[in-house]
């Protein structure tokens, strides 16, 4: 029973365009969400996060949107660059067990030059 779902295993985008990666969750107790980026042969690295009290968080080219009523979050990358090509994992946690993260299955992003 996957509590965090990334339904698109892959996404291909032209350089300079917007990349939108989606994530759905089922557990309404989740109150903190993170995105991690993973290059081949490296561990995931933290990218951006959002608390459930917000609906948007922005950091440079990266913006995360949270729609609590739909239990949906998305990561927008604008403009996309070839160096953004990686696997992106969505993760969620909740206050009573905030040190533990539940990860989605990942979306592989390819940014074409």
């Amino acid at each position, binding site marked *: 029973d996957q509590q965090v779902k*990334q339904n698109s*295993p892959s996404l291909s985008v032209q350089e300079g365009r917007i990349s939108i990666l989606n994530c759905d969750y089922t557990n309404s107790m989740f109150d*903190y969400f*993170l995105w*991690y980026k993973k290059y081949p*042969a*490296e*561990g*995931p*690295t*933290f990218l951006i*996060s959002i*608390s459930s009290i917000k609906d948007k968080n922005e950091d440079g080219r990266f913006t995360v949107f949270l729609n609590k009523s739909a239990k949906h979050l998305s990561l927008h990358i604008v403009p996309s660059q070839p160096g953004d090509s990686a696997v992106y*994992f969505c993760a969620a*946690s909740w*206050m009573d067990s*905030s*040190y*533990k*993260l539940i*990860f*989605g*299955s*990942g979306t592989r992003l390819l940014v074409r030059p």
Partner: protein
Amino acid sequence: DVKVTQSSRYLVKRTGEKVFLECVQDMDHENMFWYRQDPGLGLRLIYFSYDVKMKEKGDIPEGYSVSREKKERFSLILESASTNQTSMYLCASSFQLAGGVYEQYFGPGTRLTVT
């Protein structure tokens, strides 16, 4: 910079062998984790530890055990390796951010192949 290191990048073992995967973090973090990453399944938690000698099972602990004798070191043990344990193993440690949430830092991973 937080550094999480893992003892091996690549490992090949035979079925039935006992396998030790070592992880060390240098930032005095309380919590440490072991995940495995498989295509289409994402990162699945095997075990975690919130203090020295303390451990809790994650989502897929069967066939694995762990040891945390020192704060900076967290070991994953495959008692008798099987081919279905061929995977990428990732270690992480975490610290608490403002507001009570945690951010995890990952090591580079160990690609284990069991033949």
